[in-house]
């Protein structure tokens, strides 16, 4: 229990809250749109902070429990701000603005100096914990958002290239998960039908790890492509990758495999009875 903060809660709640919200509206929200419900969220956080200050002892080892009311409100607010693409310093800054106002109100209470020191220390500790928590939560959320965004970018970057008449090239780059594999397959099947492809080169140079799950996805893609009448030439499996696939017991049935894209292209052209030759060698054709 802290009687000083109990007094603040009882006698000065409304004025501190209003002052804080007005400050945020002027200093923070100017830069970004003010989403509906933000004030209500801030008010919930404000009350949770005051309640914690008033009800908890001055705990030297205070740790913010993420599942407590305070933890949940703070998390919600931080999530909101991270989604608004605010900077973490804004989030922490709005907490510090509240701390400043509480400290000022405390000093105006006319308490004994012991009580002031005690209360200020507790205020300090609590806001240290809040700031750290907010900062960490903010970074976590942003990281997640960024990953989601880059994953969906990856999904978009699956070009199927027409290399030659009836020859397609599908360069796979990055992590192949279920969703991505499905998109790749769809795109490839469309292209095969559109170009009446007889050969498709599947280049795996950009696939970081060929494990059984990736292999299974590839097998499904290959099977579907083959049903449309195209031959598959696989390229870009490193010697180490090939060795690993063998150890895993994986074989791509009926697939021509070439170490390099260049060898794969030569193979593909052979299948459509073409070849790349020097300009002066027409006689030999």
């Amino acid at each position: 229990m802290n009687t000083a903060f109990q007094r603040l809660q009882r006698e000065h709640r409304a004025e501190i809250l209003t002052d804080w919200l007005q400050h945020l509206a002027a200093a923070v929200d100017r830069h970004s749109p003010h989403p509906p419900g933000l004030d209500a969220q801030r008010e919930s956080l404000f009350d949770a902070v005051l309640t914690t200050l008033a009800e908890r002892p001055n705990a030297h080892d205070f740790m913010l429990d993420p599942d407590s009311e305070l933890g949940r409100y703070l998390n919600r607010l931080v999530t909101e701000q991270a989604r608004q693409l605010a900077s973490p310093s804004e989030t922490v800054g709005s907490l510090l603005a509240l701390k400043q106002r509480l400290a000022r109100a405390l000093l105006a209470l006319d308490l004994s100096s012991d009580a002031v020191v005690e209360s200020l220390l507790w205020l300090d500790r609590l806001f240290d914990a809040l700031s750290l928590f907010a900062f960490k939560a903010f970074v976590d959320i942003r990281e997640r958002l960024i990953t989601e965004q880059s994953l969906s970018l990856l999904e978009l970057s699956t070009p199927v290239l027409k290399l030659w008449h009836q020859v397609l090239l599908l360069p796979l780059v990055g992590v192949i998960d279920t969703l991505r594999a499905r998109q790749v397959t769809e795109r490839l099947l469309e292209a095969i039908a559109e170009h009446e492809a007889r050969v498709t080169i599947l280049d795996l140079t950009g696939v970081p790890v060929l494990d059984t799950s990736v292999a299974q996805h590839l097998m499904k893609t290959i099977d579907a492509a083959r049903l449309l009448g195209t031959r598959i030439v696989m390229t870009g499996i490193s010697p180490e990758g090939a060795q690993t696939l063998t150890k895993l017991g994986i074989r791509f049935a009926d697939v021509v495999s070439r170490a390099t894209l260049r060898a794969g292209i030569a193979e593909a052209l052979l299948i459509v009875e073409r070849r790349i030759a020097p300009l002066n060698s027409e006689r030999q054709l």
Partner: protein
Amino acid sequence: MSEHFATERLPIRSMLDIVTARHAARELCERLGFGKADQTRIATAVSELARNVIQYAGEGQCSIADDSQGTHRCIRVCIEDHGPGIPDLEQALCDGYSTSGGLGAGLPGTRRLVDEFEIQSAPGATRITIALIKRG
């Protein structure tokens, strides 16, 4: 003997953690002086096991340790979860056995990929330890 590299402990909660874990394993493997083939082996093995954790247990963790002794270089990876466990280990280690319509090559294949392979499983506790060893 020189000092060991610090053990890394990583959560396995999402597809992204799989990527992080196999990266970390590959990196330590390289720093320990293993060649390209070994790096690929350990990265693939970690990928298999971590994916099983996500797929069958939801989440778990992974520790990647430098267990070198004397002139022997050793990378040891332990992957554990608190999921339902594997009821029949012998069956799960058979090529082609899968309860999810997968290739069923993950566990048996991983066992062939690594130099040491240890598996313990009970409801609520599955732990697989693998190691690559290079005698120097």
